[in-house]
C-alpha cells in the first residue's frame, strides 16, 4: 500500500509515484478536455493540417448553429426536441424507479423472509439483460399498444431498467444505519412503515441522492432501447440524436462535440455533487454481508 522504505530513497520514491500518477491520469482525462475544447473552437482550426494543438481563439459558433441563430445554416439538428425528451424520460423514470427501488432495497436490508436470496438475485439479473435483446419484443408489444415514439412509454421502460441497481445501492445504504435505532423505534410503538418513513428514510437521504443520480444518468445515456422505440423526434433523446448526427451530415465533428458538451452537463454536476457518497455506496456490499 504505502511504501515506508527507510532512508533517502523514501522521499525520491514518493516524488516518482506522484509524478507517474499525475501523468497517467492527465492522459486518461485528455480526451475529455479535447472534446470540450473542440466545441468552442472555430472550424478552421479543427480541420487544418498540420493540426493546431492549442486554440488561438474561442467561439460559440457551434451553439449558434445548433440553436438556429445562424441564418446561413439551413439544415440543423432538433436539439430542443432531444433536450425535452431526454429530460422528460430521465426525470420521470428516476423519480419512480428510485421510489420503488428504495422500498425494495429497504425490504432486503431489514427483513428476513422466504426467497430473500432468489428474489434479490432475480431482480439483479433482470438488469443484466442487454438492451438490444429487450428492445425487440418491446418494439413489437409497444407497436400494438401504440407506445412507439412515445416518451412516456420510454420512461416506463427506464423505470424497470433502473429499479435493480437502485435496490442494490439502497440495500447497502440502509445496512449502514445501525439496527438499534429501528429497534428502539419498535419498542416505542412505531409500526414497520412509520419506522421506515420517519426514521430510516431521512437518514438515508445521501444514499437516495446517489441512487437518483445513477438512475438519471442511466436513462440520460441509454441508447439501445430508445434507438429502436423512438423512430422520430417525438421521442428521440440525445444519444440517438447524436447518432443521427453521424448519418445526417458530412460528419461535423465540432457540431458533435458541441452536442456532447450539452449531454455531459448533468453528469459533470452530479459527479461533483456525489463524489464521496459514490464510493461508500458502491463498496459497502464488499465489507459486510
Amino acid at each position: 500500500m504505502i511504501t515506508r522504505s527507510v532512508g533517502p530513497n523514501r522521499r525520491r520514491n514518493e516524488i516518482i509515484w506522484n509524478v507517474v500518477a499525475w501523468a497517467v491520469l492527465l492522459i486518461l482525462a485528455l480526451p475529455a478536455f479535447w472534446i470540450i475544447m473542440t466545441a468552442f473552437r472555430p472550424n478552421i482550426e479543427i480541420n487544418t493540417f498540420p493540426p493546431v494543438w492549442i486554440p488561438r481563439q474561442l467561439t460559440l459558433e457551434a451553439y449558434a448553429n445548433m440553436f438556429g441563430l445562424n441564418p446561413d445554416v439551413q439544415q440543423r439538428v432538433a436539439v430542443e426536441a432531444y433536450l425535452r425528451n431526454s429530460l422528460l424520460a430521465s426525470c420521470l423514470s428516476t423519480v419512480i424507479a428510485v421510489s420503488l427501488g428504495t422500498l425494495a432495497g429497504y425490504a432486503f436490508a431489514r427483513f428476513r423472509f422466504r426467497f430473500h436470496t432468489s428474489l434479490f438475485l432475480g431482480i439483479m439479473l433482470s438488469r443484466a439483460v442487454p438492451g438490444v435483446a429487450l428492445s425487440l419484443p418491446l418494439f413489437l408489444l409497444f407497436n400494438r399498444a401504440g407506445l412507439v415514439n412515445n416518451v412516456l412509454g420510454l420512461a416506463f421502460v427506464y423505470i424497470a431498467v433502473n429499479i435493480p441497481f437502485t435496490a442494490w445501492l439502497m440495500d447497502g445504504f440502509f445496512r449502514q444505519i445501525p439496527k438499534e435505532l429501528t429497534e428502539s423505534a419498535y419498542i416505542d410503538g412505531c409500526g414497520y412503515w412509520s419506522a421506515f418513513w420517519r426514521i430510516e428514510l431521512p437518514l438515508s437521504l445521501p444514499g437516495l441522492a446517489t441512487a437518483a443520480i445513477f438512475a438519471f444518468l442511466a436513462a440520460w445515456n441509454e441508447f439501445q432501447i430508445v434507438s429502436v422505440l423512438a423512430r422520430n423526434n417525438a421521442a428521440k433523446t440525445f444519444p440517438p440524436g447524436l447518432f443521427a448526427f453521424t448519418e445526417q451530415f458530412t460528419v461535423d465533428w465540432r457540431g458533435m462535440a458541441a452536442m456532447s458538451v450539452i449531454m455531459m452537463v448533468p453528469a459533470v454536476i452530479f459527479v461533483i455533487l456525489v463524489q464521496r457518497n459514490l464510493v461508500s455506496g458502491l463498496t459497502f456490499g464488499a465489507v459486510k454481508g
Partner: protein
Amino acid sequence: MATTTESKSREEAPARVIQFSRIDAGAFPFLLIFPAVLVILLVIAFPLLYSLYVSFTPYELLRPNSLNFTWGRALRNYQKLLNDAIFWRSLGNTVIFLAVSVNLSYLISLALSQLMARVTMGQSLLRTLLMAPMMFAPILVGMQFRWFFNANVGLVNNVLLALGLIQEQGQIAWLVDVPLGMITIIIASIWMNIPVLTIILLAGTLSLPRETFEAAEVDGASGWQKFRFITFPLLAPFSYIALTIMSLDIARAFDIVRIMTDGGPARRTEMLWTYITRLAIEDTKFGLGSAMSWITVLLSVLFTLYFFRQLVKARIVQ
C-alpha cells in the same frame, strides 16, 4: 446473501432475528418489494418470454402472417444460426472482445488504484480527473474514439505524424485494418470501464488494515510480495463487486461498436449485439433476431451470475 446474513446474525443477536421474523409474519417486506417486482415482470420478464415465443416462429415484420408457431419449425431459427458462419464469427468476436476488455480493464484499474493509493499531492483533484470518463455516455465514448482514430483528421494519426512516427501517405487506417479495428474498440471500452473499477479498488485498498503491512515489513517483505500476498487477496471482495457491477453493464459496449465501426468493414468487428440489430431492425427478421437475443441474454446472465457467486464466496471467507 442470505447465508452471510444468517451466519452473521446468528453470532451477533439471535433474539433480534426472531423478533424480526416473528412479528408481521413476513408480509410487510413482500408489500415493499411487490411494486418493483411488478414493473420488472411487466417490462422485462414478460417481453423476454414473448421474445422466446417469437424466436420459435419465422416472424418477419413485413409479413405479419409469419408470426405463427408450429412444432415442426420451432427450432428452425436456432438451426439457421448454428449453420451461419457470420453468427459464429460475431460470437467469436464478442467472446474475444469481452475476454480482453474485461481482463485488461481490471488489470489496468488494479495498477492504477495501487498507484493512486501512494499519491500524496492533490489526491482529491486526481480523483476528479479519474472520473472524467464517467461524464461520457457510451455513445459519446464511441463517437469520440471514432474521431480520434479517424485516418485523415484523427488525433492519434496527427500525433504520430507530428512525432515523425508515420508519413503523410502512410496514415494508419485504425478502424479498418484487421486487428486494429478490434483493438481500437477495446481501447474505447477500457477507457469507459476504468473509473468505476478504479474507484472501488482504491476505496478497498485504502480500507485495508495498516498493521498487516507493518508486520510484513518487519518480516522484510518486498513491495511486490506485500501486494501479491496481502493487498491482492484482501481486495477480493472489492474486485468481485467491481466486476459484478461491470458485468451488468457489459452490453453497453454495443453503443461503442455501433457508432465506431457498426460491425464493419466487411463484418470484421461484427458482434452479437450489432448482428441482432442488422437481422431484426434492418432486415426485419424478428424471429431470427429474437433467437439470437436469447443467446446474448443467457451469456450476460451467466456472466453476472458467475461474478455474483464469487462475490458471495469472497465475503464468506472474510
